[in-house]
């Protein structure tokens, strides 16, 4: 009887264990769409053998609870790549907006499209037109009209850049709040995990913590440090502590030079966060580097054009026979010149088409004014004293030794190049995230055999892609050589 009872006991345990395992499977199915849920697998434990008359009989089995199928190495890699992808995505979005400011709408006139490049050409061309008929009132009005369009578009672009910077500033402040909320949650989960499951996987609690860390990775660049008893500490990529096991360190906002800076305690961590990953890193890079850099170029362009044109107009004789005055409002400094650029002259007779010593109907100065658009180092700059008191020596220029059109083209080209670089980064990082998610999904839902299969897919894809890349390189090199030979022949 003892043997039959023991056998029933073993069978009952096995059935209970199977039932528990089925419950875990059912839980997996029920949570299939739950964000961040990690599949659980049953864990089995051998029971002590049944001994009858000194001989062991059978061995029972007990289901000891679920174990989540997670891999911290992979999820951490995924989080890191997500931080880079989010940063480049946020920066790319800002750069795209900036680029549209300097890309005219197809088919629009320069005035409505904000095409500064066309405006520059049209403005200096208006002097060429005036040169042919220096006393023609309509041509004189044409100069002021072209000047108004140019200054309006430059100041409009500067204003839009400032507005975009202000929007990004608000986003930065908002992200700070979201980061605080997540770090507080992670610290609380740390406490719960360390209390309830210091040695083993904490299942749902770890799922929640992983989900929080994943969301945090979308927002900010972080380092994760696993601590004792299943704890997790988090720092920014520059090493500032955000979570230390059960304690979170909140970021606070402050205003420095009119823009939002982020602090932990009394330490300003803004520069460390710039370029450090996550949406915040991308936004800060755009706010503190890309936009100021573009504004500086626009300021230099506005200052260069207005200074050169004003100086040249001052050197001529206007329609009233007087020395010419300023066409543009003069700036006291380069910074802010684009935003404040405007036409000062209201009377078209003030345009000094005649050269010094000519009658008011002359055109020598109109020629010199028109040439400002074509020469990289106009003679009027030699010895010119600027508004800040600096006197330019021979060879010194205001637009990096370029004509206004070339200077603007270089700026637009440089911006386009930055957009292209960030686009490439973003494409690669997003692809990497997709790959890792595929791998992570595979690991979270399969057994060891399927895991090997997932690994094999990654390896095969890499090898096939490397082959495609290698052959394409060969094709392109050959095509370029054949194209050259064909051209020569």
């Amino acid at each position, binding site marked *: 009887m003892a043997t039959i009872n023991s056998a029933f006991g073993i069978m009952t345990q096995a059935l209970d264990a199977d039932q528990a395992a089925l419950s875990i499977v059912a839980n997996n199915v029920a949570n299939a769409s739950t964000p961040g849920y990690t599949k659980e697998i049953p864990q089995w434990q051998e029971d002590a053998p049944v001994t009858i008359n000194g001989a062991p009989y059978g061995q029972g089995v007990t289901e000891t609870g679920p174990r989540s199928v997670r891999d911290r190495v992979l999820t951490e890699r995924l989080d890191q790549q997500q931080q880079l992808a989010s940063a480049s995505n946020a920066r790319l979005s800002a750069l795209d907006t900036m680029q549209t400011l300097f890309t005219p709408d197809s088919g629009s006139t320069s005035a409505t499209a904000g095409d500064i490049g066309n405006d520059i050409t049209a403005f200096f061309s208006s002097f060429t037109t005036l040169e042919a008929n220096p006393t023609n009132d309509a041509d004189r009005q044409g100069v002021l009209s072209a000047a108004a369009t140019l200054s309006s578009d430059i100041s409009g672009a500067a204003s839009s850049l400032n507005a975009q910077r202000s929007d990004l500033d608000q986003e930065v402040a908002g992200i700070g709040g979201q980061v605080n909320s997540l770090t507080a949650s992670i610290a609380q989960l740390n406490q719960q995990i360390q209390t309830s499951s210091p040695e083993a996987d904490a299942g749902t609690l770890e799922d929640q913590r992983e989900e929080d860390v994943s969301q945090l990775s979308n927002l900010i660049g972080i380092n994760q440090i696993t601590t004792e008893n299943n704890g997790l500490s988090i720092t920014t990529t520059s090493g500032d502590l955000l979570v230390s096991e059960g304690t979170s360190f909140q970021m606070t906002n402050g205003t420095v030079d009119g823009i939002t800076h982020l602090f932990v305690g009394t330490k300003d961590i803004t520069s460390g966060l710039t370029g450090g990953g996550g949406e915040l890193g991308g936004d800060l890079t755009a706010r503190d580097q890309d936009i100021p850099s573009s504004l500086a170029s626009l300021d230099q362009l506005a200052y260069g054009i207005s200074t050169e044109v004003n100086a040249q107009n001052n050197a001529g004789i206007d329609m009233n026979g007087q020395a010419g005055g300023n066409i543009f409002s003069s700036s006291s400094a380069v910074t802010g010149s684009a935003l404040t650029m405007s036409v000062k002259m209201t009377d078209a007779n003030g345009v000094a088409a005649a050269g010094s010593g000519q009658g008011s109907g002359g055109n020598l100065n109109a020629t010199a004014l028109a040439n400002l658009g074509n020469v990289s180092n106009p003679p009027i700059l030699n010895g010119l004293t600027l508004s800040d008191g600096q006197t330019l020596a021979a060879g010194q220029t205001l637009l990096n030794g370029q004509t206004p059109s070339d200077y603007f083209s270089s700026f637009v080209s440089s911006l386009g190049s930055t957009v292209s670089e960030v686009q490439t*980064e973003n494409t690669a990082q997003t692809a*990497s995230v997709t790959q890792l998610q595929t791998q992570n999904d595979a690991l979270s839902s399969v057994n060891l055999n399927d895991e090997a299969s997932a690994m094999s897919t990654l390896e095969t894809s890499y090898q096939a892609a490397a082959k495609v890349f290698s*052959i394409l390189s060969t094709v392109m090199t050959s095509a370029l050589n054949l194209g050259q030979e064909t051209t020569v022949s």
Partner: protein
Amino acid sequence: MDTSLKTLMLEASAALSRLDSARLEELALSCQALNRELPSLSRDKQMDLARQSRTTTAQMVAFKRILEATKANLDVMSRLRDLREGRLEYLVSDSCRWIRTESRHGDN
């Protein structure tokens, strides 16, 4: 044959992102065919391909970066596999052998 290099590279980048090895193998075969036929293409087509080669640098750079990222991911996964294999070795003991056996039983 579609000889648009840009399309080819964009397609390869997308396939590599989603680890579509079958599509990548197809693309590799297409590229091999293109490479084989290149010398016998008409001059117009050769010139067109040369022009495409000059204007698809950005796509090629992006593809290369995805390839590099994939290699980095592959390295991470390889290290992970080594780690797991080490763990399996450690588990070769009486109790763990039992666990593996029962795991199969549970799957059944």
